[in-house]
């Protein structure tokens, strides 16, 4: 049996350390969790995401108290009760709506930072994979949440997205009806997506966040040069007082203070949007109640799904679905498609740099084309070309990374 100091005051540091290993926890998670100095503001995106998730959770809890998951009551419970009756109900709704949109912007920045600096490579594959798990979970969370106000866009997006599970010519209508619990989206559908949105998917997200942090602890975060840092030596330098010579800083309080600085700027922008420009996250079509006998003229997803929607759209039904399926899972395999041993920023990796920027421009093009109606032939052609380019980028990376010369790290 462990030794417990009889004289330790209840809840004092010593008392807690003896019972839950407080000092060990502090060291492992804060004061001796070493972060390289050679990083920039892009390394703060993870903390922005954690904070935004926190805001979504709190605003969601507030909304949950008045929302009614019933096809007859849902629309009014959001648009009348929460918006006009509940004190500050509008605030929670706008935080929730803006947060859901902005969280994807930060996710994409976070993801592309990882791609640019090679942070998915050797030793960090699990960080990438758990991150992709989070991307899938956040997508499912966003989609299920979009169903809840039960407006026209909720209903028809629910119709179109669940229809995808019929797998084109396979005509798995039974599966679609099983997912909906009805022939069309109805009460059963709204209730189960409500359950997914407020319980099952958030639980999965929280679990995945813990896993994501866990996979990061041993490999440590990457740095601007992809340099392999000897953390023990550098940590010893820091602890011995040679802070200038050390290549690392402790997570808390040093790195965290920088994180908080970036976060402050981010939240100024965030709350500017919440208070003055929330309408960008509120589609006007969704302010009409759901009507199964009236299709909106133009159905489109929220901006963060447009690129994959545009990969689905320009092809015939079956080919479109296959292309869409490939696009959905393509990023997961990135650590295994990239065959180059170099962990380095894109600007030091020759052809990879071109590949990276083609990917960025292509995804922005797909996003822009996905928003436009499908009737304009010029834009439809641009969309088709962009979709084909996206699909070719995978094999292209495999070839490019194979012929990439290993970097000389001596100098």
């Amino acid at each position, binding site marked *: 049996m462990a030794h417990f100091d009889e004289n330790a005051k209840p809840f004092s540091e010593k008392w807690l350390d003896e019972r839950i290993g407080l000092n060990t926890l502090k060291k492992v998670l804060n004061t001796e969790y070493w972060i390289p100095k050679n990083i920039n503001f892009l390394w703060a995106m993870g903390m922005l995401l954690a904070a935004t998730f926190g805001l979504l959770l709190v605003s969601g809890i507030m909304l949950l108290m008045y929302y009614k998951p019933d096809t007859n009551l849902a629309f009014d419970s959001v648009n009348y009760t929460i918006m006009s009756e509940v004190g500050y109900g509008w605030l929670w709704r706008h935080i929730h709506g803006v947060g859901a949109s902005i969280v994807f912007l930060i996710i994409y920045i976070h993801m592309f930072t990882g791609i640019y600096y090679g942070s998915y490579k050797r030793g960090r594959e699990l960080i990438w994979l758990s991150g992709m798990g989070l991307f899938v979970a956040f997508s499912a969370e966003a989609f299920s949440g979009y169903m809840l106000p039960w407006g026209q866009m909720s209903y028809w997006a629910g*119709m179109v997205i669940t229809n995808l599970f019929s797998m084109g010519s396979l005509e798995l209508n039974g599966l679609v009806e099983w997912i909906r619990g009805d022939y069309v989206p109805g009460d059963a559908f709204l209730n189960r997506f409500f359950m997914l949105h407020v319980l099952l998917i958030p639980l999965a997200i929280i679990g995945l966040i813990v896993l994501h942090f866990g996979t990061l602890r041993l490999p440590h975060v990457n740095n601007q040069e992809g340099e392999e840092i000897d953390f023990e030596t550098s940590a010893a330098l820091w602890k011995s007082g040679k802070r200038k010579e050390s290549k690392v800083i402790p997570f808390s309080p040093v790195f965290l203070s920088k994180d908080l600085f970036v976060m402050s700027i981010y939240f100024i922008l965030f709350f500017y949007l919440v208070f003055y420009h929330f309408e960008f996250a509120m589609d006007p079509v969704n302010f009409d109640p759901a009507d199964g006998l009236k*299709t909106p003229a133009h159905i489109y997803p929220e901006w963060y799904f447009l690129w994959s929607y545009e990969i689905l759209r320009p092809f015939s039904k079956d080919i479109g679905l296959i292309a869409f399926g490939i696009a959905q899972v393509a990023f997961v395999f990135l650590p295994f498609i990239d065959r180059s041993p170099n962990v380095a920023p894109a600007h030091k990796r020759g052809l990879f740099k071109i590949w990276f920027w083609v990917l960025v421009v292509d995804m922005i093009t797909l996003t822009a084309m996905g928003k436009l109606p*499908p009737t304009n032939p010029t834009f439809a052609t641009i969309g088709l070309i962009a979709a084909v380019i996206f699909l070719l980028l995978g094999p292209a990376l495999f070839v490019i990374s194979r012929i990439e010369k290993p970097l000389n790290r001596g100098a």
Partner: protein
Amino acid sequence: MEKNRRDFMGMALGGFAAIGGVGALYAMKRTWDPLPSVKAAGFTTIDLSTMEPNKLVVEKWRGKPIFVLKKTADMKADDRDVVIGSDRFHVSIGLCTHLGCIPAYEGAEHKFKCACHGGEFDASGRVLKTPPPSPLVIPPFKIDGNKLVLGETGPEYKKMQDAGLIA
């Protein structure tokens, strides 16, 4: 000997846990199934004896609009028509096969026109003008005297299905 006993205990425990797990998954799957009341509401009966020629009637079946159009004598007959006695009817799911908008019927032209992307269908639901890739879909039906039961598969529907006419 000791080892074999432990293996047996492990396998017995694992086996029973697996049976319980499969049972729980089956129960969860069944919980997600459409309810009997939802399934029972999946049939719509339409009385065709009251229909007027060249006047479109829109019914609702499984949440989707259903077009029923009694053809006049001078309108072209089609293999896709539902024939009752001497009357011919066009029956289809009223969703454009392009992106699911609901076309409007222009009685004077005998045409269905889709406002969303300009698709046009004739009075038999066949495509006159793209983008729609295929004709309006015929829902499963059964003829019951002067009535049409949607959701049940009758011999006339089966015949159309075998001939590849339903969509």
